[in-house]
């Protein structure tokens, strides 16, 4: 009889979540095996946003691939461009003028803030709260205005060039950024009052979807995911690049490993990024924004190199293998979301559907970045 009861209990069904589903923020598909509302197995099926970036890296010249980098992780486009540009510069031995490095850090950190703001709103939508999205978008629009003035794009910035940046920032940008930093700082208290202190939100995040540091290591999850699990791993500190070692900023770490920890890491990172922007603006040197003598058609010497940057979602890596021509022989793009999503199958086992979707939300996925 007990066997019968068990077989009855184990009656499962398969639910196809996606590729079009409001919770998957794009075209992720998750094959769920559900026992009632408990997840027995959740297998992400990806590739619905595959756009051949790595193939195009081999087909196009180095410079012509630049716009592609902005279209992988389009929510935080600066980082991808930053990683790619730095990798090529490392390979070709180009030194970037100091001012350009500062501008890169300022714009990249602004982009990180914009990306985290978007995430906060989208995550709250996953939890069923609609209003915070509108507030975060309001702030995000301010950043986009600033970035649009210097880069010319609202979303898919293609601003960095080999050896510098393509436009200098002006006084309007600096004044506007200062104003924005002050504005967002004062708004953070509002966000914490609206979201962090909300009792339903806390219930839905605290102790939900714990991810251990060991799982993060085994799967290669980085960024806020690993920092929410108590590991202070940040590429900006671990493998310092650009002007980051000269700036004073903290790496927010929370030990609990649950959804709340990952949320708090991102909220704190917004504040830290604002600090970085402020410091960089203060110390902004004058000078050229492009390195001299960067050939129009870049032909880096034979060899390979790897470059890693801390994107808004984790460690974004570029491996370039050059055969001495104007096109890369192989361009490997290591996207943080890819590894972050791969932990979902293991971590969601036994969770309720709604909680698993909260966990999925905190991984902060950009699907075309996973699929590349």
């Amino acid at each position, binding site marked *: 009889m007990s066997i019968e009861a068990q077989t009855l209990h184990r009656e499962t069904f398969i639910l196809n979540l996606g590729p079009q589903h409001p919770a998957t923020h794009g075209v992720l598909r998750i094959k769920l095996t559900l026992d009632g509302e408990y997840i027995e197995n959740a297998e992400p099926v990806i590739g619905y946003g595959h756009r051949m970036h790595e193939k195009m890296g081999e087909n196009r010249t180095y410079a012509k691939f630049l716009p592609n980098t902005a279209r992988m992780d389009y929510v935080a486009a600066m980082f991808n461009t930053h990683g790619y540009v730095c990798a090529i510069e490392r390979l070709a031995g180009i030194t970037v003028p100091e001012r350009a490095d500062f501008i890169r850090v300022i714009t990249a950190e602004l982009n990180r803030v914009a990306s985290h703001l978007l995430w906060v709103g989208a995550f709250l939508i996953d*939890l069923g709260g609609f*209003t915070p999205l*509108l507030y975060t978008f*309001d702030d995000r629009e301010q950043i986009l205005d600033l970035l649009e003035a210097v880069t010319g794009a609202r979303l898919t910035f293609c601003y960095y060039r080999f050896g510098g940046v393509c436009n200098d920032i002006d006084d309007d940008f600096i004044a506007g950024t200062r104003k924005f930093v002050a504005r967002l700082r004062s708004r953070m208290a509002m966000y914490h009052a609206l979201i962090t202190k*909300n009792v339903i939100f806390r219930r*839905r995040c605290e102790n939900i979807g714990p991810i251990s540091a060991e799982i993060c290591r085994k799967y290669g999850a980085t960024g806020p995911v690993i920092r929410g699990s108590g590991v202070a791993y940040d590429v900006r500190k671990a493998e310092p690049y650009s002007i980051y070692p000269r700036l004073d900023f903290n790496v927010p770490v929370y030990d609990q490993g649950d959804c709340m920890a990952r949320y708090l890491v991102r909220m704190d990172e917004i504040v830290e990024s604002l600090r970085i922007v402020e410091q960089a603006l203060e110390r902004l040197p004058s000078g050229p924004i492009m390195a001299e003598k960067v050939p129009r058609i870049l032909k880096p010497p034979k060899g390979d190199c790897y470059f890693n940057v801390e994107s808004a979602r984790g460690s974004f890596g570029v491996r370039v293998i050059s055969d001495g021509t104007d096109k890369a022989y192989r361009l490997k793009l290591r996207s943080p979301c890819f590894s972050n999503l791969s932990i979902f199958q293991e971590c969601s086992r036994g969770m*309720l559907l*709604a*909680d698993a979707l909260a966990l999925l939300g905190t991984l902060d996925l950009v699907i075309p970045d996973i699929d590349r």
Partner: protein
Amino acid sequence: MIISHELVIGVVRLTLYVVGLIAFAAFNAAYLSLLERKAPAWFQLRYGPKEVGPFGLLQPVADGIKLLTKQLLVQEGADVLLFKLAPVMVIVPAIMCLAVIPFSETIGGRNINLGLLATFSFSAIHVLGTMLGGWASYNKYASIAAARVVAQNIAYEIPLLLVVVALVMVTHTFNLHEIVAQQAGAFWHWNILRLQASPLMPLAFLIFFTCMLAESNRAPFDMIEAESELVAGAFTEYSGMGFGIFFIAEYANIVVGCSLATVLFLGGWHCPFGLLPGLHWFLIKMYALCFAVIWVRWSFPRTQFYGLLNLSWKFLIPLAFIHLALTAVMLKLV
């Protein structure tokens, strides 16, 4: 065959009632849905619908006409009869509930002795409608939502009824008309502040309001429509007016719930200061509550399903029992 005079009048009256109530429900659905789009727009630093007609006032009309002329799709594999019956089973009880609610001393569908009982019996049916609709859809999301709606409504029916039982013990009547009449005068005569009957009365009102939110499946308890989990929940497969009717029923249920809260706790048609009682006071109170419902929806994230059940079984039901016991003791003592 002689048709008696009274019968004719009776039929005409009945028709007028039904038409009036349906019109009231439809009107409320239309303009509450507009409010539902305008109010959050104010919270969210935007305009909301404003281009369709003056101030967007024609927006619900456009939506209504569009939904009416939309193709009705029935999913292959669906139980056609139940699928088509479900919207009716949801909307009819909601309208029936409105029939016994006294809007003012003179305006009201039917003044029956067991009005309170009638509303709760009718309002329980809409659960069945939603459940059948979800089940008949032949869609996994809808099936999950159908299972959810039953669990949720059973859980919240209990504290709701416990609160109402305590109230009936105080008022000694099931007649909604009389319940309002008892609360005549200024606001300290209202049931919500009848502290001599039970000091937990304001809390009882909150329990009632919470349960009403959950019963009408409104956020933060909108488990059956949980967009980020179940696509559109029980209504996933409904298109056109099938969906439109669920939409109207949702707002009709809100109106019923808010009307009941007004009648039971907030003194119905009576003015807070004892002046000029009438329909307007009823409507003001009812729409204020409706606005609160909308406000809650746009301010909070959704609860988890077990959080929702825990809230009811572990918190609201014990509290409602304490309230009930306290009321009984107070009645005996005083």
